[in-house]
């Protein structure tokens, strides 16, 4: 067993892991954060997307040890003090969630995009979420929700709510 220390959703966490553990299993099974989903388990579907040091990554392909000393954000880290993140709010309002299995991955891909580029074009949104498969929505509502979140986010920033 190795001690793995990372900043997880803003808090320092240390957890004992096997050298062969993958990050998604540590998050779900050792830390109880089951918001991150396992879809294909081979890097094809994006359901396991989390953010590591500001970049969207696939936690099903990532040896947990790679997170040592890094900053990891999962879907559980999106809301603050009971207030939903603008992306979560917009996904609900725009009907971008149906079965919900892809949603956490899509939220994390979208968050990584907006954190880096607060005003992305539609093409940039599409490129950022191209690695997240959704079999329900047809994607239009998801892209609309991300666009709506851009506005919501800037309103909140203006009024210092967020």
């Amino acid at each position: 067993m190795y001690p793995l220390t990372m900043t997880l959703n803003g808090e320092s966490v240390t957890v004992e892991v096997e050298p062969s553990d993958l990050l998604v299993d540590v998050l779900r099974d050792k830390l109880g954060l089951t918001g991150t989903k396992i879809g294909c388990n081979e890097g094809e579907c994006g359901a396991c997307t989390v953010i590591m040091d500001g970049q969207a990554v696939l936690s099903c392909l990532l040896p947990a040890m790679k997170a040592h000393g890094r900053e990891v954000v999962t879907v559980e880290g999106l809301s603050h003090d009971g207030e939903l993140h603008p992306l979560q709010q917009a996904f609900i309002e725009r009907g971008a969630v149906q079965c919900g299995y892809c949603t956490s991955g899509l939220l994390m891909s979208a968050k990584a995009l907006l954190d880096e580029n607060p005003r992305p074009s539609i093409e940039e949104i599409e490129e950022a979420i191209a690695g997240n498969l959704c079999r329900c929505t047809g994607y239009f509502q998801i892209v609309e929700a991300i666009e709506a979140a851009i506005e919501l986010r800037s309103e909140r920033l203006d009024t210092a709510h967020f």
Partner: protein
Amino acid sequence: MWQEYLFPSSVEEALTMLAEREGRARLVAGGTDLIIQLTEGQRSANCLVDITRIPELDKITLEDGMIVLGANVTHRQAAESPLIRERATVLAEACRAMGSLQIRNVGTLGGNVVNAMPAADGSLALLALEAEAEIAHGTGRVWVPLQDLFAGPGVSRVDSTREMLTAFRFQALSERQGSALERIARRRALALPILICAVVVTLNEDSQAFDSARIALGPVAPVPFRTSQAEESLRGAPIGRETMARAGEIAMQESQPRSSLLRASKEYREEVIKVLVRRGLERAVQVARG
């Protein structure tokens, strides 16, 4: 499954870790291919030596007209680098086409080449750029031509249980040179290619004829493939639709694509070769003419 996971802080330390484990340890970079291969039992290792925290291996520099890329440069980094976009466009385009953003964020060019797939986007672009790779092993470091590293589908001549690919280098493209990547897949993102064509052209002084051209195709052979006969047909040839279409025809004849149940038949791929070679040449010429 691997029982040890190590972070060396230098190339030398990584090589020592490998040597001490006598073939039972293996290097890992981004891991986007290797982790699946290990999980599915296609490759094995008792220990993974993670090279992504070795400083200096993630740099992109221009030295005396040569672009030098550390092996840990990710696809994302290469796709977004102004130097690569301007002076090695084909590589930027290849790196932007590969996988999804999540995979481009961690997958490295070193890993792409050592994984040795015949239609690897990065490998084909580097091949068209006539890149060399630096290999570090117990007794020193040597530069070898990229094409010498591919032994077969998924089989590299770089033995990642004993040695390490540390960098790539190639001539930055200059005036009268242009490059482009053409790719067809079943989806526009996150799909293995039906065919990829990487092209680098050099025009003559009045930009009316080809001085030379380099064309890499995949998957049309067990390894990333340079179309030497098509390239020869373009040497000194006037730039025109007919010349480029003929090059496509020759490239098709010297290629040996296979049928894939998942992606495309041999016959379809042969037609696509002709089209992508012509398109690649047209776009590379446009870039070269500025």
